[in-house]
């Protein structure tokens, strides 16, 4: 789900960098409000490495296999650090595997990062519920995992399909987007389920990890 170099018009690349730059600045401001931003840097970095490695694990779904993206999970755990972790991960991916690209790093960060921030705010709602906390945590975990992925997929499909071919008529475009979203719907369910499992695991084993 990365847009490669050369595919999209430069105006979109630049817009991607502009939005990424602005949001990064905002994320850095939010991070500075932390009680101890310095202590969180190693945590966020190691988790960036861990998420990056996780994205290399393949899950077989015959006849193909998918890899997890978990940007919702990153948002839920890392909060605003996720918006720094994601471009770093994408940068590694572009440099090491030529997956994605340097000119499209901004756009790809927007595609992955904004949904992560949305997922963070969605998951934070659990602090507001007082009754049936366990159930709500599960529901919100699923929602952040699935929603972040769907949002990313929508952004990706919209950018890729609408910019690649300005001459395509609107109906064909819309259909292409719908078709691709069915596939991503399945992945969203898987990502949501894994996010629920991960959050329950962490709540049991290392609850402080959920409160960075």
């Amino acid at each position, binding site marked *: 789900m990365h847009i490669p170099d050369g595919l999209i018009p430069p105006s979109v690349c630049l817009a991607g960098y502009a939005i990424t730059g602005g949001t990064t600045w905002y994320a850095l401001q939010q991070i500075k409000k932390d009680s101890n931003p310095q202590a969180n840097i*190693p945590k966020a970095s190691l988790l960036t490495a861990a998420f990056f490695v996780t994205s290399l694990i393949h899950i077989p779904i015959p006849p193909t296999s998918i890899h997890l993206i978990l940007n919702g999970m990153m948002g839920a755990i890392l909060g605003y650090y996720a918006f720094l972790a994601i471009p770093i991960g994408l940068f590694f991916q572009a440099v090491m595997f*030529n*997956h994605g690209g340097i000119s499209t790093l901004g756009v790809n960060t927007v595609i992955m990062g904004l949904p992560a921030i949305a997922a963070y705010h969605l998951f934070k709602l659990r602090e507001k519920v007082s009754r049936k906390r366990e159930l709500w945590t599960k529901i919100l975990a699923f929602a952040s995992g699935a929603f972040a992925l769907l949002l990313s997929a929508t952004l990706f499909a919209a950018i*890729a399909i609408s910019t690649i071919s300005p001459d395509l008529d609107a109906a064909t475009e819309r259909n292409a987007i719908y078709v691709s979203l069915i596939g991503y719907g399945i992945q969203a369910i898987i990502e949501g389920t894994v996010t629920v499992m991960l959050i329950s695991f962490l709540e049991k084993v290392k609850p402080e990890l959920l409160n960075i």
Partner: protein
Amino acid sequence: MKLAIDRYAYLDSPIHRWQQNCKIVGLLGLIFAFAFIHSLILLPIIIITTGIIFFLSRLPFSYLVSRLRYPGWFILAVVFLLPFMIGETILFQWGELTLKLEGCQIAAVIVVRFFCILTISLVLFGTAPFLSTIKGLRSLGLPQVIVDMTLLAYRYLEEVGEMVNTMERAMKLRGFDKHYFKYRNLQVLARLIGSLLVRSYEKSTRIYQAMILRGYGYQPPSNKSQKKLVLNKNHYQDLAATILTLSIALGLLGLDLFFTIR
């Protein structure tokens, strides 16, 4: 997991000798100029420019091919349909299938841009150790927090990768077969990822303590002198190379604008 990114970083070539922060500015300028190209007529020029830079870098051709293979298939799959879907001028008709000129042109532009940008970014990141690239980005004003996070994540990438390999091995020896898709396997995988997160987190706590003990975050009073670029004789050459590359980039942009308007 192999991070083969520094494999050819220590060769000797004009591109290797080009100081990394100057190289970043120059080649990134070129990459963005390439991304702007619309005109078919400029495609041969950017191919030749890319060819010259790649030749100067002395990176083996086999390395380029191996790095282009996977993303190459991806881009071909993406643009495959364009010649049949877009445009009015029919080049070739075969039953229902019509090959159209405008579609072919768009596909050609996308593919050439893609291969040239990838080759240049391979030269940019393949001709210097990854750490120099990060230092270069820092001297160009990347925020310290991001630099620190990138360095730490990079440093522990291989270690975390090794961790997950060993854990998968241990699971396999206890009979786990991940080649099926079922609920239990998803659960096992989630636990594996969870354990990975917990172990990375615990490691990070120790790393932080070790960093603090060696003075991390302590700002010496005269820090500014370090950031000043030292201009020596070699550095003028680095700057000249950057200015040359940027002029090419600007020239390409100008030409593209000229052809588009005309």
